[in-house]
């Protein structure tokens, strides 16, 4: 049994369901060919974003990955602006300039999804530096995949955060694959968390399908960081239900149906709902009401995105620079 308050349990639940229903809808729209580009769905991993973000303060920053929708939703993202961005609309979070891989909301301290694997990790370290510099008491979180821990930027950032004793949480979402390559082919260690020790930071391994475990690990790591004791590493064992990108796997079969079914059986949402009912935090009817409310929010987001205008092509060159780009163009010949 958990020691978390009913309010926290409900908060975590709401965040997970918002991610799930948003992502399922985005996947349907994508598969129907009504969304440009490509999307990396977060379905299956909800317990991580929800458990982490529920344990954070509003002024704590998170940096994200190519699989970033869940992190923005968990930080309180506006589903309408997200869906509009995914559809390339002017009303989207980035005015249609970013799309799925760059959704961001700096007002929510969500420092952006990122198309470069590992690219967001040093940026979270910079946010942690700013928090320490200002003694704001805030912490930053770098979300990244198991695959990202094989790239140099991750190692530089982890070492830097530890050496400078920065308030940063390194949250690894180990879903056992990097695109189509299983993890055991790309690293010779059993658990990603083993890497934390090399940087002198504490590491914990948690069940990433259990949002309460994630919440508790995050609370401990954030508390440590806020107390000035530096960064921590949390490895969350989790799984993505759909393909690396999009929903269905086309072509090569890189994992078995059995494996997918085994992980789906651990689905974090019904499991958390059972826990809430058992704890008296919510009734089954209450849960249904939350799901219906969020389903309506998602429907409204789709409606908003579909009705929204496309960006004005004349805005193409806006936002390359803050302020005028500078330089001087020649006058026409006299």
């Amino acid at each position, binding site marked *: 049994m958990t020691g978390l308050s009913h309010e926290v349990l409900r908060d975590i639940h709401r965040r997970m369901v918002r991610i799930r229903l948003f992502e399922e809808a985005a996947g349907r729209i994508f598969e129907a060919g009504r969304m440009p580009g490509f999307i990396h769905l977060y379905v299956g991993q909800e317990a991580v974003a929800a458990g982490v973000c529920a344990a954070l303060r509003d002024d704590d920053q998170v940096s994200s990955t190519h699989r970033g929708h869940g992190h923005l939703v968990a930080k309180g993202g506006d589903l309408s602006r997200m869906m509009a961005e995914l559809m390339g609309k002017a009303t989207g979070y*980035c*005015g249609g300039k970013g799309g799925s891989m760059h959704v*961001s909301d700096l007002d929510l301290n969500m420092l952006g999804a990122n198309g470069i694997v590992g*690219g967001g990790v040093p*940026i979270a370290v910079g*946010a942690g*530096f700013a928090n320490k510099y200002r003694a704001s008491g805030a912490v930053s979180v770098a979300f990244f995949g198991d695959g990202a821990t094989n790239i140099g930027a991750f190692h530089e950032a982890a070492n830097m955060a530890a050496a*400078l004793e920065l308030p940063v949480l390194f949250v690894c979402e180990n879903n056992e694959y990097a695109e189509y390559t299983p993890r055991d082919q790309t690293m010779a260690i059993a658990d990603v968390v083993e890497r934390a020790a090399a940087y002198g930071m504490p590491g914990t391994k948690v069940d990433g399908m259990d949002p309460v475990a994630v919440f508790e690990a995050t609370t401990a790591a954030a508390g440590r960081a806020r107390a000035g004791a530096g960064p921590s590493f949390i490895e969350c064992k989790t799984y993505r239900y759909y393909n690396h990108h999009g929903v269905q796997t086309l072509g090569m079969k890189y994992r078995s149906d059995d494996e997918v079914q085994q992980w789906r059986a651990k689905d974090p949402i019904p499991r958390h709902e059972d826990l809430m009912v058992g704890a008296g935090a919510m009734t089954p009817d209450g849960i249904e009401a939350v799901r219906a409310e969020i389903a309506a929010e998602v429907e409204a987001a789709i409606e908003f995105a579909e009705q929204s205008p496309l960006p004005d092509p004349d805005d193409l060159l806006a936002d390359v*620079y803050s302020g005028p780009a500078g330089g001087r163009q020649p006058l026409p010949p006299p």
Partner: protein
Amino acid sequence: MTELTYLKAFNDGLRQMMDADPDIFVVGEDVARKGGVFGSYTGLIDAFGERRMVDTPISEQAIVGLGIGAAVCGLRPVVDLMFMDFVLVAMDQLANQAAKLKYMFGGSARLPVTIATNGGAGLSAAAQHSQSLEAMLCHVPGLKVVMPSTPYDMKGLLIACLRDDNPTVLVKNKRMFGVKGDVPAELYEVPIGEARVARPGADVTVVAYSRMVTESLKAADELAADGIDCEVIDLRSVQPLDIETVVSSARKTNRIVVVHEAVRFAGLGAEIAAQVSEHAFDYLDAPVARVAAPFAPVPFSPALESRYVPDASRIAAQIRTTLDRA
């Protein structure tokens, strides 16, 4: 006005800006206790302490990334990359992150981060510690790149970079550290993207930046003895480019020679030649000429390196050729 070296002008400008703005800090390898391997930051640790002068591990990606994250969160970092060659090690953070976050986020981010680095050949530092890589940086929308040629411009451009809300790269030339010049005591800006006419002239326009301005002025002096009147333009910023000043001069002198230390192929000279032909084709009496490094890595031995790096005599020779063309 006081006479300061190129390097001291950087140090002074930074110190004054750090005094004025508590959000400015410096991060990089050996910047704090050592004061930078070239002395760019000498004494700043005593004035500002370890909170604002931060020595880091040898992690160029993470150093630049730290600057980006801190800038997005409202600070104004100065990120030191010891040698311009090391820009390549940090290129993802510079070109994919710093340069693009604002645009990708639809305008919501501000990135007031200044990357200070040291470029240029001539010290037998060989192929990995001598490069002029500005063309690579100029090619990336979102970055600004300045390359001062005098102590005055060093301080003024540094201040402009520190006040700019965009990622800026300030490239010092390693052979100019000891060059002296008059520098005002107060804070002033040299606007990014504005060239200056370093020497007015009528017969031919020489376009240069960084240390090649000095060499071009030497060449101009030498040619003046033969009655050749060169106009020398110091670009000061290479991104954004003040092509107006270049084109106006081309329309006046009708002949252009571009000079840079970077290799000729796909260097700034190519861009300038293209823009001059777009805007002043009918005025030209000779093809736009380039004096630049050959297409090879920077060599080590002084015997090779002196052949590699353009100098006043090669510039003068090219100017004569360009003028000889009927």
